[in-house]
């Protein structure tokens, strides 16, 4: 049985997760993920499984690590000038808090703005976090981002909505 993190601690964790991406502190951001975590952007809110269908992104920790290493490399031309992003989150609703299963699920509507050079675009959607407590701290087991226009023709998304 896990000690139940307070609702406030869960919310602060979600805010901090977004703030680390926005600050470009990608390695610290990656540390928030559990070893077998998945970062998933489906093509439709109806999608229940990333197997069998296409997704915009579905990455394990290793691929996220590749993505971060690439962004930091000198030959990531698309990151010259570097892209910047900002998440604006609504207070996450706690959909499930099960200390027996060590499972905490939150959902929050969000706006995401990404800018690069003179260009800027925004995305909006709902983010689901499936969390658990590991050695006394929260970790992300799944981050699922449902863009409201996931099936639209999208511009390149350089960072992490």
């Amino acid at each position, binding site marked *: 049985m896990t000690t139940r993190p307070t609702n406030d601690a869960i919310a602060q964790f979600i805010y901090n997760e977004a703030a680390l991406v926005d600050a470009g502190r990608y390695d610290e951001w990656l540390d928030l993920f559990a070893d077998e975590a998945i970062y998933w952007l489906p*093509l439709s809110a109806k999608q229940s499984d990333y197997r*069998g*269908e296409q997704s915009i992104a579905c990455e*394990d920790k*290793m691929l996220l690590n590749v993505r971060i290493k*690439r962004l930091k*490399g000198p030959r*990531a031309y698309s*990151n010259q000038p570097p892209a910047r992003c900002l998440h604006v989150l609504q207070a996450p609703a706690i959909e499930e808090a099960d200390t027996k299963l060590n499972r905490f699920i939150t959902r929050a509507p969000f706006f995401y703005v990404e800018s690069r050079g003179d260009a800027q675009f925004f995305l909006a959607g709902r983010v689901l976090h499936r969390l658990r407590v590991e050695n006394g701290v929260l970790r992300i087991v799944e981050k699922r981002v449902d863009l409201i226009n996931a099936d639209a023709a999208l511009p390149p998304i350089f960072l992490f909505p």
Partner: protein
Amino acid sequence: MSPPDQTQSFDALVQPDRVHRDVYLSESIFAQEQERLFGKAWLYVGHLSQVPRPGDYMTLDLAGQPVILVRATDESFRVFFNRCAHKGSMIVSERAGHTGRAFRCPYHSWTYRLDGTLLAVPAQGGYDGTQMRACETGRGLTEIASAHYRGFVFARLAASGPAFDAHCGAMFHAIDALVDRSPSGEVEVAGLPLRNIVPCNWKVYLENINDAMHANVTHESASMAAERVWSQAPAGVKKPMGIEILMPFGSDNDFLARMGGQVYANGHSIFGSNMSIHSCYSSLPDYETAMEKAYGEERTKHILSWVPQNSIVYPSVAFKSAPQTIRVIRPLAVDRTLIEVWAFRPKNAPDALLERTLLYNRIVFSPMSIVAHDDIHVFETIQKGLRTSGNPWVSLHRDYVAGEGDAPSMTTSGTNEILMRNQFRAWRQYMAAENAYAVQA
């Protein structure tokens, strides 16, 4: 950039070994391409697995014109312009759906059978004694020439022109290469398409599909990052599919040349006619057993050994046989192109095969691709860089040999820019005056 309005000027813009920047920058040329090239070519529409039952339809735009692919009552398929014969409103707006036994226009409730003929008009007495039924209006939905090869449907907007088999038949073996990888000889679309807006002229994208020499430069950031992460993995761990997909983007120029290239009449081509960066993927044992059961050992070996990098049915679609995926190229504006990426599920094959396709498309072809971001950056800068004064030419000189265009098809090195010159040879034929257009046999 004063665009030429004389057809013979296209010859001055497209020389055998270089092309003028106006072909990528001129809005007037773009408008002429929509009419003369995309209006006449056989364009990819969709796959029959997307409309399995009578009444199933999908919609899309071809060269800026809305069309519908529908499965008709007799199970044949048809492609119509998505335009009510009455006032011109689109009769359906969903990207895909099921319309039952008839289409019904949302404006005045004119209805059409699945073969496009007019079924009923409300208060039809109002048309007694008029010419409505005798003219275009009474003919119902306008059908477009369509054909398919192993489920891949193409259509031609122009009312007349070369037949599908004559125009695209040289590429059927590349479609076979995809479909034959299914032990059942059948594939179906898996899920929704990835849809990308790419800020460049469609030809920049299409040429890149054949561009060997950019891979280890533009994609160095991705292949190096994968190599670094993999080098830190504990010994004895099986190489994950993602790493296996990313590392070959760093293949050296010698390998890229040995991949081979093949060009065909009408702009079609195969890059990687000998092998490709997909050739070195690890085998999937259950899959090979299923293939051998279906095809026998020898034929299985033959099917699995041919893994072209990209097979282009000019000008609208590029096939990969392994992974089983296609990229569809839809020009939107002179500097904006829609790229749709569809994954195919081989029926009766182990899930791992489709999983590799899905992973490949996410990593390489998605709006969040780890690989394509650097391509897109370059494409965008080409649209800008070409605006500089001084040198108006784009070079296609690599391995050019005078008179090479006389042969309708030839095999060459993977790094020979003939794969791009061949696209422009077709481009020039399409763009020449309407009546001068002739398909090469």
